[in-house]
């Protein structure tokens, strides 16, 4: 190797080392120059539970978004012969041969009885003071396997409300139906209904939070900025609203919704009702922050530097407590979810034909129905999962937003 070449290699090495050092320096610089949000995101990423919660919530919202595609059946699909069927058993091999995932046709059939037997049973039910229900048997036809197919055509819907489609992720050949989570008392697929119900249950709290966010920010800042009698009046109103138990108030408000209005309007009204009460906490926080920040040195400094009021509010004050607000909002979502679920459960919220998790839980209204069809509690699992995930996420965000941690 010539001297010259040697020198070139050395130069290259030196250059590479320099670049490496530069990169490391940039990385470090990035750390020190990271914005408040980047720092928060980094801290949040380190919070294990919050991370898991974020993934779970992301998954749930994804499912809700593409619910019509993922759910094998539509809200209105029902089957009189499938009332209260337990979750379908998925088999893989038939007659010792592997055929892939399939089910057997399962139906409810009325037990055949003689006229005498029937009248005796009717009489017995009458004596017990119960209504006569003809006894049924669950009959499984194990002769023909019905394969589960991917991407089948079924009920039509609109993807994201725009494109018409009738493709579903999976379905069964023939006229039989697969009930992954069992069927409800009207023979509707619980799995599909949970997915489609999540479109309501997961978005109402979000929309409600947005409304209460705007209301809280607006009213809170007016109260904190103007002070005086305006502040006094707003504070009294907040105190009054806080002194009323939220659920009874929600009930009273939703009792005012006229029966039989279209689902979209009902959805909007329920959202507004939920957010009408929950803005108060946020308004208080905003007001308190405004009051304390008003006297903060850096605000005073900006004022002395001749920055306009509006700019001080938007550039200096709001970013100062924005993270705090978002944490507050996240922690407020669970109570909205529970509120919507409770009201729908009572029949005061979302009503058929629309559905939500609360509506689905109506099936679990008494002990005997749970004892007979325990799968009607599956929606509960999703409610609890979502509420927990929002709680953990909010907790993680609170820690991340705390600059002293």
């Amino acid at each position, binding site marked *: 190797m010539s001297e010259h070449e040697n020198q070139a290699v050395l130069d290259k090495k030196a250059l590479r080392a320099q670049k490496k050092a530069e990169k490391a320096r940039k990385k470090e610089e990035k750390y020190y120059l990271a914005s408040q949000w980047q720092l928060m995101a980094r801290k949040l990423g380190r919070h294990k539970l919050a991370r898991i919660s974020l993934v779970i919530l992301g998954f749930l919202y994804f499912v809700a978004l593409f619910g019509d595609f993922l759910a094998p059946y539509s809200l209105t699909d029902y089957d009189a012969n499938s009332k209260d069927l337990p979750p379908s058993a998925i088999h893989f091999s038939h007659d010792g041969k592997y055929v892939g995932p399939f089910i057997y046709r399962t139906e409810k059939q009325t037990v055949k009885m003689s006229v005498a037997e029937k009248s005796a049973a009717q009489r017995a039910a009458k004596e017990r003071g119960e209504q006569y229900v003809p006894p049924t048997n669950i009959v499984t036809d194990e002769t023909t396997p019905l394969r589960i197919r991917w991407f089948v055509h079924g009920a039509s819907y609109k993807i994201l409300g725009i494109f018409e489609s009738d493709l579903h992720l999976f379905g069964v050949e023939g006229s039989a139906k697969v009930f992954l989570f069992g069927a409800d008392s009207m023979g509707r697929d619980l799995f599909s209904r949970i997915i489609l119900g999540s479109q309501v249950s997961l978005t109402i709290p979000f929309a409600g939070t947005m409304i209460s966010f705007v209301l809280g920010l607006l009213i809170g800042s007016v109260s904190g900025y103007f002070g005086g009698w305006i502040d006094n009046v707003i504070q*009294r*109103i907040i*105190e*009054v*609203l*806080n*002194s*009323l*138990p*939220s*659920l*009874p*108030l929600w*009930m*009273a*408000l939703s*009792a*005012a919704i*006229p029966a039989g209005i279209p689902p979209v309007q009902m959805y909007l009204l329920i959202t507004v009702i939920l957010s009408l009460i929950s803005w108060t906490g946020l308004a208080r926080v905003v007001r*308190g922050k405004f009051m304390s920040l008003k006297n903060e040195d850096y605000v005073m400094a900006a004022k002395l530097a001749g920055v306009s009021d509006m700019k001080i509010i938007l550039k200096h004050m709001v970013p100062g407590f924005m993270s705090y607000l978002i944490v507050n909002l996240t922690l407020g979502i*669970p109570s909205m979810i*529970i509120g919507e*679920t*409770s009201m729908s*459960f*009572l029949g*005061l919220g979302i009503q058929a034909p629309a559905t939500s998790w609360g509506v689905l*839980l109506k099936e*679990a*209204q*008494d*002990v005997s129905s*749970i*004892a007979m069809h325990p799968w009607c*509690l599956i929606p*509960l699992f999703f*409610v*609890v999962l979502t*509420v*927990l995930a929002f*709680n*953990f996420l909010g907790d993680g965000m609170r820690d991340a937003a705390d600059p002293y941690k």
Partner: protein
Amino acid sequence: MGQYILKRVLTFIPILLIMSLVIFFIIQLPPGDYLTSYVAGLKAEGQIVDESELDSLKERYGLDQPWFTQYFKWMWNIITRFDFGYSFKFEAPVWSTIASVLPMTIVVSLVTMLFNYLVGIPIGIYSAVHQYSIGDYCFTFIGFIGMAIPNFLFAILLMYGTYIWTGTAFIGLYTSEVLVGLQQGTMQWWEVLGRGDFWGRMAIPIIVIGTSGTCGTLRSMRAQMLDELGRNYVLCARAKGVSERRIVYKYCLRAALNPTVSGLSGVLSHIFNGSTISAIVMNLQLVGPMLYEALKAQDMYLAGTILLVMGFLIVLGTLLSDILLACLDPRIRFSGRRAE
């Protein structure tokens, strides 16, 4: 101190007045009123309607006048005659209608509140003092779950559980014998309190209604205690040679109780939320189911009065917590207001 209490009591009155206005506005929102639909129903069935009685009711409550006139009449009757209106559904004055369920509602609420604090505070302290111990993790986990399960489903799950374990279904607060006694007036509500079986039946409702609030108290108590334990005065007390026990109970607990006490009205409203829906699900003879019926039937005075009573009790709770807070925290006593 006396002046402080007086000041708080005086702010109590305007709040109650605004509250009654808000409530009345909400309950008259549904279009139409009970009497009109009731009369229409009767006429459709071909029954004779006593017009003069209807007219006197209409006149008395101003039912054919604008809502704020109705509101003033309602308030006027309440203030001057303690007349909360007439329940069309139960066909009796509102006050005597709710009198059959109100005392028991208050009893259940108070006991639940006791349960809330007696369970939430000690566990919160334990969790904070033994932070990151196995016990702390367990309680934190239970706390989260307890807050995440909706009251009414918890009720159903518990009822189902007791049905499976004991073989008897849970049905209401009273045995049938007591229920009959209460309905016929041979028994008064306070006599029920002396019965052992009543308290046994109370366990499930209290757990159901109180769990989410208790978990909330537990979590806030833990957070507050941790906050206080990290303060400098704790270090200073340690440097004086004060024992850990005394530091926890003399210094930290008293400071940490502060937000817990100021959250008293929140706990109370939480209990009302819980008791409303759980009572409907579990068929308890409390005001919750009555409110539900009243709202469904547009029985506005009954619904309004129930809301008003709940609001009144919560405001009363706020007042109590303010006074308690002033006793606990010298800073509030002197400055005369809540430290937010």
